[in-house]
C-alpha cells in the first residue's frame, strides 16, 4: 500500500520537475472572443510511434496468449492468471494511448451553434398556435371531450396494475402452528429444562422443511426480572422461555448475535443483534427495537410446554415475519 502510494507520489513529482525544467507554463485559457482560428490538423506520420504501438500490441497479444497456457500448464494459479490478463489489458491501453497521441492525425475542429432564442421567432410560433384555433365556436365541448378521452386513456393504461405479480399469500404463512415441536439443527427435540439462562438456541419446526420461510427461531430463557411483555403476551413465555423469528424485520438477515450480561448491574441487558446492520431487539420486551434501522419489533412465537416437558409452539405467528414491505408493517408490541 505505502509502496504503491510512494510510487504514485514519485511519478507526480517527477513530472512536475520535468515540466519546470522545460520551462513550460500552463496554457492560457481559450477565450471565446479570440480572433485566432483554433482549427488545426496535424498529421504526425511518425514511423517510430507506429513501431512502438505495433510492439506494444504484440506484447499484449503475448500476454493474452499466456493466459490459456498458464490455465492449462499450472492448473489455474490465480496470481499468474491475473498477471497475464491484467498485463494484456494494460499493454493494450498503453498502445491505445500512444496511438491516440502520436499515430493518428491530431485535429481540433469547430462546430457553429445557432443563437438559442430569437424574439421574433417566438412571436411567430405563438401566432401559429393561435391561428390553429380559428373558427371554432364550441370550445368548451371540445375541451370537455378531450379531457374525458385523456382521463379514460389514463385509466386504461393504469388498469393492468391490478394484475401485477402473483398473490403473496405464501409470505403470510410459516411452518409454525399450535403443537409443532421445537427441534435443533440435528432434529433432536428441545426439552424446556435444557434451555439455559445466558445461552441462545436455534430451533426448527419438527417434521417440516428447515429451509422453508420462517422456519428458524431464536430461543432464550430469561430470569423474570428481564421479562416485561405486553399484557396480551403474558402466557407466551412459559418458565421464562421466549421464541422469536430468526429473520430480521429490516433486510431479512439471520439474526445470530446474542448478548447476555455476566453481571447485569455493570453492563447491558440481554439483546439480539442482527449482524448486517446492527438492529438490536430486546427479547424480554416482545422484541422491541432499541437500536438500528429495523422498523418494527421482532415477531414473537407463543410457546407452551407439553406433558413430557418438550417445547411446542402454542399458536402460529400473530404477525407477518421477515423484512417489512408495504403490506407488512403491523406490529403488536
Amino acid at each position: 500500500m505505502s509502496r504503491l502510494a510512494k510510487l504514485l507520489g514519485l511519478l507526480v513529482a517527477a513530472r512536475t520537475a520535468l515540466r519546470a525544467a522545460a520551462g513550460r507554463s500552463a496554457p492560457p485559457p481559450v477565450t471565446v472572443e479570440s480572433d485566432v482560428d483554433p482549427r488545426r490538423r496535424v498529421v504526425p506520420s511518425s514511423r517510430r510511434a507506429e513501431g512502438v504501438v505495433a510492439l506494444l500490441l504484440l506484447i499484449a497479444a503475448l500476454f493474452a496468449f499466456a493466459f490459456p497456457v498458464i490455465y492449462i500448464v499450472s492448473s489455474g494459479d490465480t496470481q499468474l492468471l491475473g498477471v497475464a490478463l491484467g498485463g494484456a489489458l494494460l499493454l493494450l491501453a498503453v498502445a491505445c494511448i500512444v496511438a491516440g497521441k502520436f499515430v493518428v492525425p491530431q485535429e481540433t475542429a469547430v462546430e457553429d451553434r445557432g443563437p438559442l432564442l430569437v424574439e421574433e421567432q417566438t412571436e411567430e410560433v405563438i401566432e401559429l398556435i393561435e391561428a390553429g384555433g380559428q373558427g371554432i365556436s364550441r370550445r368548451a365541448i371540445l375541451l370537455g371531450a378531450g379531457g374525458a378521452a385523456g382521463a379514460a386513456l389514463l385509466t386504461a393504461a393504469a388498469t393492468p396494475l391490478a394484475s401485477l405479480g402473483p398473490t403473496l399469500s405464501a409470505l403470510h404463512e410459516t411452518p409454525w402452528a399450535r403443537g409443532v415441536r421445537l427441534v435443533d439443527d440435528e432434529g433432536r427435540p428441545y426439552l424446556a429444562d435444557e434451555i439455559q439462562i445466558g445461552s441462545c438456541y436455534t430451533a426448527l419446526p419438527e417434521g417440516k422443511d428447515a429451509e422453508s420461510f420462517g422456519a428458524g427461531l431464536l430461543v432464550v430463557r430469561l430470569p423474570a426480572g428481564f421479562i416485561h411483555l405486553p399484557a396480551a403476551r403474558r402466557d407466551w413465555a412459559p418458565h421464562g422461555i421466549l421464541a422469536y423469528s430468526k429473520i430480521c424485520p429490516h433486510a431479512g438477515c439471520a439474526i445470530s448475535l446474542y448478548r447476555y450480561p455476566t453481571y447485569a448491574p455493570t453492563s447491558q441487558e440481554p439483546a439480539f443483534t442482527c449482524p448486517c446492520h446492527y438492529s438490536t431487539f430486546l427479547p424480554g420486551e416482545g422484541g422491541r427495537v432499541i437500536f438500528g434501522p429495523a422498523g418494527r419489533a421482532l415477531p414473537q412465537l407463543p410457546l407452551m410446554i407439553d406433558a413430557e416437558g418438550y417445547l411446542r409452539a402454542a399458536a402460529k405467528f400473530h404477525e407477518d415475519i421477515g423484512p417489512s414491505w408495504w403490506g407488512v408493517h403491523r406490529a403488536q408490541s
Partner: protein
Amino acid sequence: MKRALRRWLTHRSRIPPALRLSLAVVLATMAVVGLVAPTSEGQSSTSATAGGPLPEPNSPTKSPEPPGAGNPTRSFPDSPALRAQGFTLYQASCSSCHGIALQGTPRVAPSLRGVGAGPVDFYLSTGRMPLEQPREEPQRNSPAFTREQIDALIAYVASFGGPAAPTADPADGNLALGFRKFTLNCAGCHQIVARGGITVGAQAPDLQEATPQQIAEAVRMGPYLMPHFDSRQLDQQDLDSIARYVLWTRHPDNSGGWAIYNIGPIPEGMVAWFIGLAALVLVARLIGERMDEPV
C-alpha cells in the same frame, strides 16, 4: 366580526370551481382514511407487565456451564500453601470489588462463590482482570499476575466450590467440523477468521492470541456479554474442533494475494477503489493533456 365571517364564507374564490371540488374530495378522503386506519406501531400504547426481581443484586446473572459429564477437565495445582498465597493476593487485589469473602458488592461486582477455576483462569490469564473501574468493559491485556500467582488465586477461589474447568485439545479436533461449528455459533460476532468485531454495547475480541484452554473456558462460561454454550449445544468434539479452527485462522491460506489482516471484503473493496481510482485519475490527467500551441 360577523360581517367579516360572512364575507369570508360567501366571497367568490379565485380558484376555479373544478379545482376546489377535487381539492375537497382529496382532503375528505385523507380525513376518512386517517380516522379509519389502525394506529401505527409508534402510536399504539402497550401495557408492560411488571416482572419479578432479578436474582440477588450481587450474584452473577450468568454462571459458568460445567464441561459436561465424562468430558476432560483441566486441573490446576492446589495445596494449603498455595491457597494461603491466593488468600493474600485476593485480599490485596480483588476484595475491594468482589468482597472480602467473595460475596461480591451490590451493583459493583458479582459474587465469586461457586464460579470454579475456569473463569478465574480465563479472566486473569488474559489480563482482563483486575479492572480499573467496575463499569469498564474487560479487555485483553498483559496479565497482572505471574502464572504462579494466578494458580494461587485459582486455588483460593476454587476452594469455595464450583464446576471443574473445561479444556480443549486441538489435536483431537476436526478442522472441517470446527469451521462449521464456528460459522454457526461464533462467527456472527467474532468474524469468520476470528478477527473480532463489534456488537451493540461491547466489542467481540479477536481470537488471535487466545490459547485452546482460554477458548474452552470462554465457550463454557460466556465472559462479559457473550452467551455461554452447554455441552448439548457444543460437545467436547465440537469444542476441540473449534479450538483447532481458531488456531488455523492465524495462518489461513491467502491464495488471493494481499490479506489485509483478513478483515473481510469491505476493506478489500475500499483498497481497490482508492488505489484503482487514484491510478485512473492520474492516467486520465496524463493522457487528456491539452495541446499548447497550434503547430
